[in-house]
Each structure stands twice: as structure tokens, then as C-alpha cells.
């Protein structure tokens, strides 16, 4: 196993950075105005155990499959220390005393029953070992493992358990869209579940360069750009993921790039180059597919692109190189005076690219390209010009995108000789591969796609 993806790797760079001039490494690799923050935080996380899920006869296999998915989801949530269950405690009535002796805070048990021919009832119990009580019991309907909706239904149960235990949203019931280049030179937009399973192709482009997949806020549609290889025109399309229907959103002559939906799903912001201008920001009414408005006016020979809305829809963060190098700016969503979010240091050669506003707060993730390579950074949109936080250090990391929990981030990168998409937890800085493969780029994380409450079978 490569060092780069070992969970919870502790780095000592923080200490080096604090030594100031004594650290040649930190001095070389971190631009001015950036603080390294790649150390695993040792904050207390509840110890959680998951007993074998029970089921009569052949249902034991179904129960085992469901448990595997939930166990991994809870691990990937990075909110618990997952404790291995001792065989002596893995069956029979639950007695809290031995669990408490093991230091376990939370215990998950579950049983599977059959309801109807092709679906199951999953009865999940969360035990609060510390307080000697059952915290939650709920039954969920889960389709047959062969059904298309099976994995997402189980992921939704995982998110419900995370919410029971922490009061915070999970992100298991979500997917990541990305662009893949095939070995024979075509382009594809792919979608994969948050745990790296269930890889599916949604768009295939042998004659068009595909880029910039972006989810609608309801998770039902995907916008992307397709460039005609004959004339170079780049248009923005939207695909309905349920029906497969595709419609053109913007196809003015020239380049229409980097689409992003407003949180209410009514508007789409994007970059567009017209005539002799470079890319500038525009938005449109994406429901009526009309009413294109210009939001920014870039100075000659500068480009503005990669817009992303704040969760309240009132501001847009974007990339502009109006000062000569790409930096991150914020402006009102209807256009107006831009504010530089990243600090411009004269003479320093660094690029700040592809910002994305957190779905849950004021944090903005983006990436830098400069002497320290390509790395992921976080800025606080409410503090323009403040020192920003660099959360990756090894390999290369680019094109970050937030998970719906506002805590995990997917990025495209390399770790050792591995290439592909990786997921980092902003709190613990743990990094895991999502899906490995060369030419996997431009990941975009979906909103929460399914809520378990919709699956609750109404049986206590």
C-alpha cells in the first residue's frame, strides 16, 4: 500500500511550517498567504461497532451484503472509530456491559425480513451504550440486491444512521460525475457512487470533447460542455438522468464553458467567449432556456470562468486572471463589483483555479498551481484576503468538488504511482481513492440524492 493513501497519516509539516525560516521545505512549497493544514486532527470520535446483520435462512446473505455497504459508508463518513466486533458479542441478546468494557460508545444492530417478492424490510437499531439505552429503531424498505436502486437505498440508510448518531448529514447517498478519456481517444461523462461502486457512463463523445459535468440541485440533471472537433464550437448541454433526454442550453458561436446551477435550480451561470473577447461570465434562465445576461466584463486578454453559487444563491465565486494570474473572486449573483478572495502577491507566480462554494457554509475550495505543484486549498468567503488553508501536500491534486455533507472533497490527482479520483475529509485530512484510473478528470459531486426518510416503511 502506498503511503499517500494510508488512512489517518500524520504529517509533521505543520510543525515545520511553524519554524518559519528554519524550514526550507515549507518556505519553498507554500506561497505567501497560504497556511499548510495537512495534519490529522486527533479530535475524539465516537467508537462505533456494527454487529452482523441477522436474517432467516437465505436472508442471511442479503443481510451480509447490506451490512458490508453500511459498514464501509460509516467508515467513509470519517465521523466514527469503527471497532471490530469480537465473535463472542456478535450474536444473542445485546448486553451493554461488555461493550462498555470495550470502550464502545455506539452499537448498530439490524435484522432483515422479506416483504413481498422482491424487497426486504431492514430493521436498524442504534444503541447508545454509554447511556444504556436504545437510541433509535427504524425499519427501511430495501429493494432486492439485483435492483438498480438497491445500493442507493442502502446508502440512504447509512446517512440516516450518521444523522442519528451525530445530528449531521452524511454523504453516502450521493454520486460523483467526472470526465474520462478512453484508450481509443473518445470522451465520456461517467458517474460513480460515493463508495466508488456502480460506475456508469451517461454521455459518450467520440466526436466531441466533453468537459465540466455539473449537477442540478435536485440531482436529476447533469449539465456539461461538448466541443465540436470540426469547428471548435463548445456548447452547453443538459442531460436528464432519468429519461436520457438531452437539450442544448447555450450554443452561441464560440466557447460556452464551465456551467453551474444556482441552488434553486432556476439559473445557470457559465463562461462565454464572444467575438474578440476572452471568456466572461454570463447567466441564463435555465428553466425557460432564455434571457442570457452578462455578469462580468473582463479586461482585454483576461479570462473569467468557473462560477459557483453560494448556498443562499446571492453570491458567485469564480476565477479571473484580470491581474495577470488566475485568482479567486466573489461578486453578487446578479453581477457587480468583484472582491478578490485570494491574496495577490506581486512577483509571486501562483495560479488559483476552479473554485467551488461549499453547499453548507462559507468555505470555498479551489486549487493552486505553482512552485509547490498542484494542491487543494480552502478559503473563507467571509474573509477576503485572509490566509488560506492548504489541505493537501503529496502528489498532485486538482479540480476539487464538495460532497453534500460540506466536509468531504473529491479531487483529481496522483498519489505515488496511482492516478485517479480521491476523497479527502477536511476535518481529519484522511484521503482515500474513490476510483483509480488515468485520465479521470473534472469530478463533480452530486447533492444528496436520496433521503432515508422516504424509505422508512412506517414500522417501528
Amino acid at each position, binding site marked *: 500500500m502506498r503511503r499517500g493513501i494510508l488512512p489517518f497519516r500524520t504529517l509533521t509539516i505543520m510543525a515545520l511550517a511553524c519554524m518559519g525560516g528554519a524550514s526550507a521545505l515549507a518556505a519553498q512549497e507554500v506561497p505567501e498567504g497560504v497556511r499548510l493544514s495537512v495534519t490529522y486532527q486527533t479530535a475524539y470520535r465516537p467508537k462505533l461497532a456494527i454487529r452482523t446483520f441477522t436474517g432467516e435462512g437465505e436472508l442471511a446473505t442479503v443481510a451480509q451484503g447490506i451490512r458490508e455497504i453500511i459498514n464501509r459508508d460509516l467508515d467513509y463518513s470519517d465521523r466514527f472509530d469503527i471497532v471490530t466486533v469480537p465473535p463472542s458479542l456478535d450474536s444473542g441478546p445485546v448486553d451493554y456491559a461488555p461493550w462498555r468494557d470495550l470502550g464502545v460508545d455506539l452499537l448498530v444492530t439490524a435484522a432483515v425480513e422479506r416483504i413481498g417478492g422482491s424487497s426486504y424490510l431492514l430493521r436498524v437499531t442504534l444503541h447508545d451504550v454509554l447511556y444504556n439505552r436504545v437510541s433509535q429503531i427504524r425499519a427501511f424498505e430495501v429493494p432486492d440486491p439485483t435492483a438498480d436502486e438497491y445500493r442507493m437505498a442502502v446508502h440512504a440508510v447509512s446517512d440516516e444512521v450518521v444523522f442519528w448518531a451525530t445530528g449531521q448529514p452524511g454523504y453516502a447517498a450521493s454520486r460523483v460525475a467526472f470526465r474520462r478519456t478512453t484508450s481509443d*481517444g473518445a470522451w465520456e461523462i461517467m458517474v460513480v457512487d460515493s463508495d466508488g461502486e456502480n460506475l456508469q457512463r451517461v454521455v459518450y463523445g*467520440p*466526436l466531441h470533447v466533453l468537459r465540466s459535468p455539473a449537477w442540478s440541485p435536485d440531482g436529476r440533471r447533469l449539465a456539461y460542455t*461538448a466541443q465540436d472537433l470540426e469547428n471548435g464550437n463548445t456548447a452547453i448541454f443538459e442531460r436528464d438522468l432519468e429519461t436520457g433526454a438531452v437539450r442544448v442550453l447555450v450554443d452561441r458561436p464560440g*466557447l460556452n464553458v464551465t456551467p453551474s446551477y444556482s441552488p434553486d435550480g432556476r439559473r445557470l451561470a457559465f463562461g462565454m467567449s464572444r467575438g474578440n473577447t476572452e471568456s466572461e461570465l454570463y447567466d441564463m434562465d435555465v428553466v425557460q432556456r432564455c434571457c442570457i445576461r452578462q455578469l462580468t466584463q473582463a479586461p482585454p486578454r483576461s*479570462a473569467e470562468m468557473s462560477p459557483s453559487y453560494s448556498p443562499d444563491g446571492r453570491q458567485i465565486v469564480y*476565477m479571473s486572471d484580470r491581474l495577470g494570474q488566475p485568482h479567486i473572486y466573489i461578486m453578487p449573483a446578479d453581477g457587480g463589483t468583484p472582491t478578490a478572495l485570494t491574496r495577490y502577491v506581486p512577483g509571486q507566480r501562483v*495560479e488559483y483555479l476552479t473554485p467551488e462554494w461549499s453547499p453548507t457554509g462559507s468555505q470555498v475550495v479551489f486549487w493552486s498551481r505553482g512552485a509547490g505543484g498542484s494542491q487543494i486549498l480552502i478559503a473563507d468567503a467571509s474573509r477576503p484576503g485572509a490566509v488560506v488553508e492548504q489541505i493537501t501536500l503529496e502528489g498532485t491534486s486538482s479540480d476539487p468538488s464538495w460532497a453534500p455533507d460540506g466536509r468531504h472533497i473529491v479531487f483529481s490527482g496522483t498519489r505515488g504511482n496511482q492516478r485517479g479520483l480521491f476523497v479527502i475529509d477536511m476535518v481529519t485530512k484522511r484521503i482515500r481513492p474513490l476510483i483509480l484510473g488515468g485520465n479521470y478528470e473534472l469530478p463533480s459531486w452530486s447533492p444528496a440524492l436520496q433521503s432515508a426518510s422516504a424509505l422508512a416503511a412506517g414500522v417501528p
Partner: protein
Amino acid sequence: MMQHRAVLSALIVAVALVGCRREQPPATPSPSAAGPTQTPSAVQPSGMDPESAARAETERALAILQEMIHFDFDDFSIRPDAEQVLLRKLPILQANAAVQLRIDGHADERGSPEYNQALGQRRANAARDFLVAHGVSSARLATTSFGEERPLQMGSNEAAWAVNRRAEFQVTAGADRVVLPASD
């Protein structure tokens, strides 16, 4: 290793992007509109009929018009060697008013595919601005960018990157007959 994307993509013409509306191909000008207005002044090779000579001259002129230029890393300024390439195109553009060019910017594979498309656009625009500054009408020069996705040379090394950071010149009108102006 991986084969040339652009060539293959061009070959797989039978398969269209799922659900994507195909753009109209650029209109090809009629031969009369693009016809020569000057007589060829280059010396005709002996033993060649006038038609073959004209064809050979057109091909030599097209080769000069299509010669690509290269750029430094993450940069879109016109290098001195690229200036020489662009200056060679000028007399041909001046002598053939019907010729129109599309300048395609390209980037190497490093960096974001999205930003690289913007970078390629700026390279194309820089080449266009150079020609316009030397008297070519901007109406004859279109630009676009293919970013990093159409490399000339595969590979993750400086040699491949240097080749791939480029602007290409497609003759989109007036290619049927292009004259070489009289040499000085």
C-alpha cells in the same frame, strides 16, 4: 501506448454523440468567389502544365499558411521564432483576399482541462492580434481553442509538452487557389 486521439476521433465518424446536436459544418465558399485575382508570379517548374503548376503553387502557399507556432509553458506571448512563422504568412494573406483562417489554440496536458481551454483561446487570439497588427482584417481570422485534449504528441515529458503548446492554422475559405506573391 495510446494512439493519436485526434486522428481516431476523426475516423470514428459513424458514431455521433448520444443526443448531441451536431453543429453545421462551416460553409465552403464557391470556387468562383474564392478565385484567384492575380496571375501566379512564381516561376513555373519546367515540364508542368499550367494547371498542375497552379496546384503546386497553391500547395506551397497552403503549407506556409498552415505552419503552426509554439508557445512557452503557461504563456501566450508570441515568441521570436513564432513571429518569423507568422511574418511568412503575411504576404500570402495580402495577395489572397479570399483566404480566411481559423486559428486553433492548444495547451499541454498539465493543469486543468477547463483553464487549458481558456489558455489555448488566448494563444489563438495572440496569433490573431499579431496578424491584425500587421494589416490583416480581423474579419478573415476566426479563433477557437481545443485546450489540452488534442495533443500532437502523446507523452508526459517536456518534449511532448513543447510540441503540444501550439496554435494551428486552418484555411477555412479560399483554399482552392492560393497564389504566392512575387519574391523580393
